[in-house]
């Protein structure tokens, strides 16, 4: 707790949005191989450590880094240098993220010297990029990692995407206006971004099937029935249907058709999946087998192995995340030594993806900092206590919703085994 009081001024600065104006930050930007942009910020009073921020899934064209993560203002105020890569690939960028981070780290070392310690922080897809970096990338003395809503199960999650895509086709076949081109590959070749089908067209199609964009009392009985069946089979929160359909369409087709990813290989399939114990869905859904070569390439890029050496990890997730489901934390806990991993789950009212409060995010970060500084491994309860301390002292807005007794179900409960 004394440590927390010590950082109080910095957190106040973070929450206030303005740190000391007496310090300047040196900002280094540029590009590395493959067109990845990087941004490195080093505070004048640099403490010698580096935080690497890994951003999440984005289908926007690769461009200059505009975001260093939710904690960057605090981290810079605490003296850390902060660096981030745009990655050279859009979407599921794991095929080259290892190189992107390695090259950015090379730029950092050449210009500022080797950092004493490295901490890696990332959200969503940035969570699995963080895992990959912990496990396979030479980024110097990596002592800690802080994945937020991380997709630790990595490529396994694409199984959920193909299920979603093909269940949509089956359930919405009763609504002509709901038809979407493609199927087992998401969109037809050449996939996203080459195939001409827009997010608006997708929204209109999904809305025609399920009335997802209109108030419940404006839905037709058919739309309500379709929506109910879709939610029952996919176990998704309603407010994520459209977002997830985007992943199952644009994201899936991009990973399959991008020449630098699976180059047309069917990396995921559903040939053996049990949807309803031999019922109508099992009988009618389109089936496709994964091509072994493409499937193993997808798995290699990337599923967390848990081989993180002595790196200490605090992993934060919301319980109702409808995009990167919380069961990913169960998977991660199954491969990482418990003495290296603390998992904390925030229990929310409305399902969000990474919808943490500032106090929760700061509490996890400060708990990791204390741990890597030689303190005891924090428990989820400790993180909740830290969060409550921050809120009680008006250091960061809450609420604090971490439930130390939350039981995380296995990933196979939500993503059907195959």
């Amino acid at each position, binding site marked *: 707790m004394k440590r927390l009081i010590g950082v109080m001024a910095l957190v106040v600065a973070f*929450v206030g949005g303005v740190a000391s104006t007496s310090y300047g930050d*040196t900002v280094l930007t540029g590009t590395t191989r493959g067109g990845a942009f990087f941004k490195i910020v080093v505070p004048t009073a640099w403490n010698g450590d580096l935080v690497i921020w890994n951003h999440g899934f984005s289908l926007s064209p690769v461009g200059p880094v505009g975001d260093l993560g939710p904690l960057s203002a605090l981290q810079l105020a605490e003296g850390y240098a902060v660096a981030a890569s745009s990655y050279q690939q859009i979407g599921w960028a794991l095929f080259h993220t290892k190189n992107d981070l390695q090259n950015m780290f090379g730029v950092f070392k050449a210009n500022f010297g080797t950092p004493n310690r490295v901490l890696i922080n990332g959200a969503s897809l940035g969570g699995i990029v963080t895992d990959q970096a912990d496990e396979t990338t030479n980024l110097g003395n990596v002592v800690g990692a802080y994945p937020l809503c991380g997709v630790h199960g990595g490529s396994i999650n694409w199984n959920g995407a193909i299920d979603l895509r093909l269940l949509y086709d089956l359930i919405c076949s009763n609504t002509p206006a709901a038809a979407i081109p493609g199927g087992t590959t998401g969109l037809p070749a050449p996939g996203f971004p080459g195939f001409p089908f827009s997010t608006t067209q997708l929204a209109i199609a999904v*809305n025609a099937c399920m009335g997802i964009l209109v108030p419940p009392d404006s839905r037709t009985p058919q739309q309500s029935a379709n929506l109910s069946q879709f939610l029952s089979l996919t176990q998704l929160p309603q407010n994520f249907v*459209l977002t997830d359909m985007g992943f199952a369409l644009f994201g899936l087709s991009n990973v399959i058709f991008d020449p630098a990813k699976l180059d047309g290989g069917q990396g995921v399939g559903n040939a053996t999946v049990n949807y309803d114990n031999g019922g109508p869905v099992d009988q009618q859904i389109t089936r496709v087998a994964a091509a072994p070569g493409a499937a193993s390439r997808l798995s290699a890029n990337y599923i967390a192995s848990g081989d993180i050496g002595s790196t200490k990890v605090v992993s934060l997730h919301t319980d109702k995340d409808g995009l990167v489901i919380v069961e990913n934390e169960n998977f991660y806990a199954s491969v990482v030594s418990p003495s290296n991993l603390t998992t904390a789950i925030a229990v929310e009212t*409305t399902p969000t993806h990474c*919808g943490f409060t500032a106090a929760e995010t700061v509490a996890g970060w400060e708990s990791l900092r204390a741990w890597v500084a030689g303190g005891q491994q924090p428990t989820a309860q400790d993180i909740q206590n830290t969060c409550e301390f921050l809120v009680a002292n008006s250091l960061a807005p809450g609420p604090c919703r971490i439930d130390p007794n939350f039981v995380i179900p296995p990933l196979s409960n939500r993503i059907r085994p195959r």
Partner: protein
Amino acid sequence: MRRHALLLILSVTGLGLFLALHWGSGSVGPRPVAIGKTTMQLLPDETGKPQAWKVTKVEVPRDKLPDLVLPKPAPRTTPENGRTDVARALDAQALETWKHGDIKGALEKFRAAVKADPHASEPHSDYGRLLTLTTDYRHAMPHLERAAQLKPGDPQVWLDLATFYERNELFERAAYAKQRADQLAGGRNAIRDDNGFWIVEGSTFP
């Protein structure tokens, strides 16, 4: 033979000059980048091979967040007028069209509303929200940012941006926008609606 020797000497000299320029004499690091300058640095890639990469260095005060500062809107040249009324009427029609399930029609009416008076903030906000809901983030962003420029004292425009940035996984910006909203909300709570959008407690949308 003499010509070849000359070429060889020139090549070696050129290479030496190149390396001296990029690595500096007697140093192991690349040529340092001066503040405010862009240069090519010769650095090893992940395989150890040297690559020339473009690097720019600047220095900014800590209180500046250049990527988050929205440019000021062009000043309104005329007071609110008939065009504003038309824009508001079209905006209201668009909301009704949306509620009745015609998403395509609603998008068209919002577009018309924004065109009728580009200085009215509500159509930008409402159009940006529907585009966010349809996950058309590329088109949503300019409208939500424009609404924030036009009505910077309204906490809801910053909550809309917080929602948008969060959905685009731009968490630094999301935190900044949420913080601005909290500062402006004057004690009113920000909550999430059924879509997961941030709203000022007590308000509804659409």
